[in-house]
């Protein structure tokens, strides 16, 4: 019973916090709500017995990425968000679609028949320790996507510089 209660608390809190993140006018507030959001997500990982994921979530997202966000916000001195006319005026349609999606998942989710658990049971992972279990999979079975992700990250860095740097070499 307790895990379910905890799950519902975290799930509801995550939804509420994400709404706060996107609706705050002050970017600093948004970023701080996001910090809280990341901690709640980390807690969900703990509930799923994924301690390594929880640690990574806290260290990488809450620790590194969010601090970077805060730096940018503070450096740019964004007191208020830049206001612009919305490109498309589609709030009613958007809300209707979101509700439709929510309802269709809501009424069908009971039909989920989870697959039989794989080779990595909780006991096995505990005996191997988490980093070993994740590493084993990541560097064998998932080697290829793992390598492609490195290209994705490179493109993200290059893209950010291209779009943001004022003067590029001709």
């Amino acid at each position: 019973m307790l895990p379910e209660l905890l799950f519902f608390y975290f799930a509801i809190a995550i939804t509420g916090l994400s709404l706060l993140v996107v609706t705050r006018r002050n970017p600093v507030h948004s970023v701080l709500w996001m910090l809280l959001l990341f901690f709640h997500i980390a807690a969900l990982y703990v509930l799923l017995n994924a301690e390594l994921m929880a640690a990574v979530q806290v260290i990488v997202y809450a620790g590194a990425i969010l601090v970077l966000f805060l730096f940018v916000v503070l450096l740019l001195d964004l007191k208020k968000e830049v206001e612009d006319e919305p490109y498309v005026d589609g709030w009613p349609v958007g809300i209707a679609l979101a509700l439709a999606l929510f309802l269709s998942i809501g009424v069908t989710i009971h039909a989920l028949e989870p697959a039989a658990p794989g080779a990595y049971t909780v006991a096995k992972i505990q005996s191997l320790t988490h980093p070993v279990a994740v590493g084993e999979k990541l560097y064998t079975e998932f080697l290829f996507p793992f390598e492609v992700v490195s290209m994705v990250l490179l493109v993200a860095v290059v893209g950010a510089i291209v779009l943001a740097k004022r003067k590029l070499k001709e």
Partner: protein
Amino acid sequence: MDLELWNLAYSLPELVMTGGSLFLLLLGVFRSGRHTMSVATLLVIGITALSLRNVPEGVTFSGMFVVDGYSNFFKWVFLVSAALTVLVSGRYLESRQENHGEYYALLTSATLGMMVMASAADLISLYVGLELMALSTYVLAGFLRNRTRSNESALKYFLMGSFSSGLLLYAISLMYGFTGKTSLTAIAAAVSDGDLAGNPLVMVALLMFVAAFGFKIAAAPFHMWAPDVYEGAPTPVTAFMSVGPKAAGFAVLARVFTVALEPLQTEWTQLLSVVAVFTMAVGNVIALSQTNIKRMLAYSSIAHAGYALLGVIAGTAEGLSSVMNYMMIYAFMNIGAFSVLILLDRQGTDVEQLEDLKGLSKTKPVLAFLMLIFMFSLTGIPPTAGFIGKFYVFVAALKAGHTGLVIWAVVFSAISAYYYLRVVKLMYMEAPAPEATGPVEVSLSTRLAVTVALAGVLVIGLYPDILLGVSMTARQLF
């Protein structure tokens, strides 16, 4: 099937492309003149093509990566469209003071992403390939950094693309929840073993797959982003986006549906049929009222996604090979049409209003004639390649028993003749505007691109066996 842990020989073209992309990134730091960068990029694409010719077929990386005739054919489409895009880009970017080395690195990394998608035998590798392609194209769309419309285009593409990626991930996680697998063949086996065909939540996952891939190929009702993004992006990027990512979208859509979701064929056939008719209707009808050529070609590109979907709906080997042909032909004719627009470029301003083409046959007869051929091909008039593409898609759909769909497709093709031939009418039957008599841009590489596109359209149109032979043998290894 050989399931080794990894065998680099299978992924040689991807490795070459990765190395080439990194090399271009470095080269751009030292020398970024348009000639150097274009030649270097073409060289990278050329070496990739050479390695693609001799790549062995099989499965590697623990079943994540598959090389077969199907993936190889699509990789050719990507390489052709990337090469043509490089040819038309240099001059265009330079006249806008935005010729940076990063452009070529991003173009090749987008191509790499598409190649990974075409070879993906697993939902995870499919997703990372898709993200690699998508991230690169978002940046390319916003490459004219000082123009608001280019920024808007990139932002819209990014937001809609992220949303569709989210849907795709949700669908993947649902399928994983049901089957415990991410490999396409393993999912198919688990779905039919577990008798999941009637499960409502599996239907939700299927819907999300349709929506996510629908975004990528710009099929209605997931097409909303396309006109704005295509209009605002730099014209060479528009040419690339309307061909490469679309073909890659078709490659994964057809593979996921005919392999992983094969047990659900009745369901997805119905879903895709609705999407196809709606796409053809939206694309062709809205294109009628456009006054901007880039927007018109965007709606035309939506309509073409509708025609090509017919081949997937057929679900047969013949249908798949007709989609493959269609994508190759579409690459030639669509990039050809955009190249003519780029050649008409007036010192850094896009020629993009239909009005601008008035009387082109008097001022620039050669360009007008080229545009005429590309418009004929997009309409599907013989002896151009466009006819061959449509013909085989329709025949495949007919043989699979989708007569109704083909009738719709033919009706909408007839409607499309109006807006394609209106371009021809403007060029040949109207007097030129007085200010339209500027000199033609002398860009050798853009001319080369148009010539290659023209050759593709005419040669495939007159001797379709060249292409059909390749795709027929290719599809058997699927």
